[in-house]
């Protein structure tokens, strides 16, 4: 795995070997060049040997309607009338953003089911996936999907198998208009800067790069004509962060809870040591007959005082 050193691994408290200095890769999706042809969708399915079922048309161009274990990327179409009343057809390729701070990895309870490579790829390893779906809970972009076939989580791998041997991801290679490009994250940012200049020259004043730092930046970035309103693009989150709920759940609460439980046990232990148990002293040497007590079986009495001796459990 020389080209695929791992820098983070789900549910693993120790640090994996990651001393090599590797350049981060990134996929840049230029929505202003995208024609929504779905070539990337098809190339992804072809390369990854995925065949989603033939669905229905629901009166939109979005097909399939949503990501699934067999659809790792898809086009989302939005008809938007801009301020001057001109129609814009905003088309966004949706899929895993490969966050620098991946919520899925943070949430995953199974060691090695989610790994983050030094080049930035966040990959799922179904061998270790237990299908709990915590990754979905953790993802700020709502990307992973659990297969109903094998109950394991799937998503875009950024073609880690292709990148490992020095190739670009399948969607990048196929993109007819060059709306998807791939390279070092630095180069991609530079490319984006050029595109933004061109877009501004065409009247898109708010054109910009989408590389949200709420998740530490992403290794899939967008060039948007309206970078000020990412939500226009089929609800691309404006300031994505790992949900505070998830942060609480998989953050401090984990060690604190364990600590508290341990503390409780210790507290008991020392209470026992210092104060000791409560015993019935007179149990040790039985006292003589106490006349104050009537010769009655209390158990029977418990059950039916009005009918002595009716029923009751045998003495041990």
């Amino acid at each position, binding site marked *: *795995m020389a080209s*695929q050193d*791992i820098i983070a*691994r789900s549910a*693993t*408290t*120790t640090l*994996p*070997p990651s001393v090599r200095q590797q350049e981060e890769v990134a996929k840049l999706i230029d929505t202003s060049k995208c024609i929504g*042809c*779905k*070539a990337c*969708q*098809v*190339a992804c*399915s*072809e*390369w990854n040997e995925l065949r989603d079922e033939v669905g229905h048309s629901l009166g939109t161009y979005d097909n399939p309607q949503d990501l699934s274990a067999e659809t790792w990327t898809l086009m989302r179409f939005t008809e938007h009338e801009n301020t001057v009343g001109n129609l814009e057809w905003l088309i966004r390729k949706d899929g895993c953003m490969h966050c620098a701070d991946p919520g899925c990895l943070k949430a995953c309870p199974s*060691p*090695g089911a989610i*790994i983050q*490579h030094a080049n930035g790829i966040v*990959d799922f*390893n179904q*061998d270790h996936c237990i299908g709990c779906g915590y990754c979905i809970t953790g993802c700020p972009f709502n990307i992973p999907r659990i297969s109903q076939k094998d109950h394991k989580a799937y998503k875009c*791998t950024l073609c*880690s*198998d*292709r990148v*490992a*041997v020095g190739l670009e991801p*399948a969607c990048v*290679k*196929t*993109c*007819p208009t*060059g709306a998807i490009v791939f390279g070092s994250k630095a180069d991609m940012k530079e490319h984006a800067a050029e595109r933004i200049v061109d877009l501004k020259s065409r009247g898109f004043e708010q054109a910009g790069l989408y590389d949200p730092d709420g998740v530490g930046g992403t290794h899939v970035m967008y060039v948007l004509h309206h970078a000020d309103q990412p939500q226009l693009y089929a609800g691309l989150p404006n300031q994505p962060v790992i949900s505070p709920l998830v942060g609480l759940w998989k953050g401090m609460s984990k060690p604190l809870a*364990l600590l508290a439980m*341990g503390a409780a*046990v210790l507290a008991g*232990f020392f209470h*026992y040591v210092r104060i*000791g*148990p409560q015993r019935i002293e007179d149990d040790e040497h039985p006292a003589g007959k106490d006349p104050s007590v009537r010769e009655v079986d209390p158990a029977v009495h418990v059950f039916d005082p009005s009918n002595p001796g009716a029923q009751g459990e045998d003495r041990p």
Partner: protein
Amino acid sequence: MDLNRRQFFKVAAIGLGGSSLAALGMAPAPAFAEQVRHFKLAHAHETRNTCPYCSVGCGLIMYSQGDAAKNVAQNIIHIEGDADHPVNRGTLCPKGAGLLDFIHSPSRLQYPQVRKPGSSEWTRVSWDDALDRITDLMKADRDANFVQKNAQGQTVNRWLTVGFLAASASSNEAGYMTHKVVRSFGMLGFDNQARV
């Protein structure tokens, strides 16, 4: 089960010991290898081709299993754009990117079939039977309906009762042979898919 002090100490000790072992990560040592899927084209055989769909004529590389040795039936497992091609430069559109499913489409025809008049099903036939049958039909019709001279007695040598629709994606070689053969029969009801 009354514990006395001594017994309790034992239990507590074991408990703590267990949990501290856990804290040390008594889980099996994590395996860091085999994280990335094996690259499937490592030794696939490459063949250059051209996309059969639209007229951009994108270059393709077809990857097939086996090294074309005598004992291997080449099976195409993946198709990708040809990065050297000046027009598509490695890219493919949604149709081209899915070519693998065209080659392996469940709708591919496997052997000659005949549907008899009025029948609601196909019956499989051999190539010889199919071709002989077509030859009979053609010869009979041509001999019956060939026009050598028109009303004015001009030599016209045409055959109008049988027509031929040529393809739109067959190779120049196939097209040229088709034209050569069809004209030699004297056919004029000859056309291709240029308009639709």
